[in-house]
């Protein structure tokens, strides 16, 4: 009472005035994220067996898996697309994947200018070459953000 609380408050703020600041200077100093941070997704197309468990597990219908069935009855991945604008980052797809083809990574810069840029997509080799010729794009295991028609090249999929 009688202003003691006020003086205590003034003392506290004055003390904190001279203490170390907590601000991170973001673009220069990147945050030190925990390894488990659910920043965005990494997709391993080689490991994917097109089983669609992830898209079935997803609560929001974010994931779209297109595949074709070859003569050997094996599924071939054609298109793997996640509409991250609807993603809850709940991790049910990562949990569901039997081959760990889709995992979280800590790259978090998903902000983009247009709604369409929020896609995270892996596209199979198109147009389909003859079975003997392996297209080089298929070797690219890291998912690359594929911009839809006219999308910006800095689309949000990976940490490009």
């Amino acid at each position, binding site marked *: 009472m009688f202003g003691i609380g006020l003086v205590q408050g003034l003392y506290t703020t004055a003390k904190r005035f001279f203490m170390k600041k907590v601000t991170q200077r973001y673009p220069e100093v990147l945050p030190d994220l925990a390894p488990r941070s659910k920043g965005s997704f990494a997709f391993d197309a080689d490991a994917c067996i097109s089983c669609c468990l992830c898209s079935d597990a997803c609560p929001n219908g*974010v994931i779209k898996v297109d595949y074709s069935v070859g003569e050997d009855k094996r599924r071939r991945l054609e298109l793997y*697309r*996640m*509409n991250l604008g*609807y993603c809850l980052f709940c991790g049910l797809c990562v949990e569901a994947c039997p081959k760990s083809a889709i995992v979280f990574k800590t790259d978090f810069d998903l902000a983009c200018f247009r*709604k*369409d840029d929020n*896609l995270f997509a892996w596209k199979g080799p198109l147009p389909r070459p003859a079975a003997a010729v392996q297209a080089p794009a298929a070797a690219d295991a890291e998912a690359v953000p594929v911009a839809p028609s006219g999308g910006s090249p800095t689309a949000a999929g990976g940490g490009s």
Partner: protein
Amino acid sequence: MRDAALIAEALGPELGGGVGLEADSSARELSVAGRDLATVLSGLKSLGGFVLLDIDAVDRPEGFDLSYRFLDRGGEGPVAVLTVKVRADRGRPLLPSVMHIWKSADVLEREVWDLMGVVFEGRTGLTRILCRDDFVGHPLRKDFALERPDRFPEAAESEGGRA
């Protein structure tokens, strides 16, 4: 926590005859008929130690099952939930309001009316609470049509952009 059967027994003399009151001790439930609801709930009030926390309704083919959840703080042992179950008619869902007995029933009854369309008699201000005022229908009913193009015309337009 008090035994549900004992509560029903304790309520018995106060309510007089003609009250349909069934007790299920293991599930801690009392089942009453709609016409006796107010009597039973005011009986609970006079027993003391109860707090009305929640009213929720389930739409079943045979009618709307309403559960009045009370926190039972009397008796020995831990606090537990006592549920009073009552069924409202599917065609003409009408129940007595208990707002004058339990003040917290005000918002809860409004919610049930808004989402489930159960009408509570004998109270004022039974208006929409979560849905907007000009909303048509009661969304938690099973026969509520989810896909109605006229409900959200703007959403239907932008649907094309969705994956």
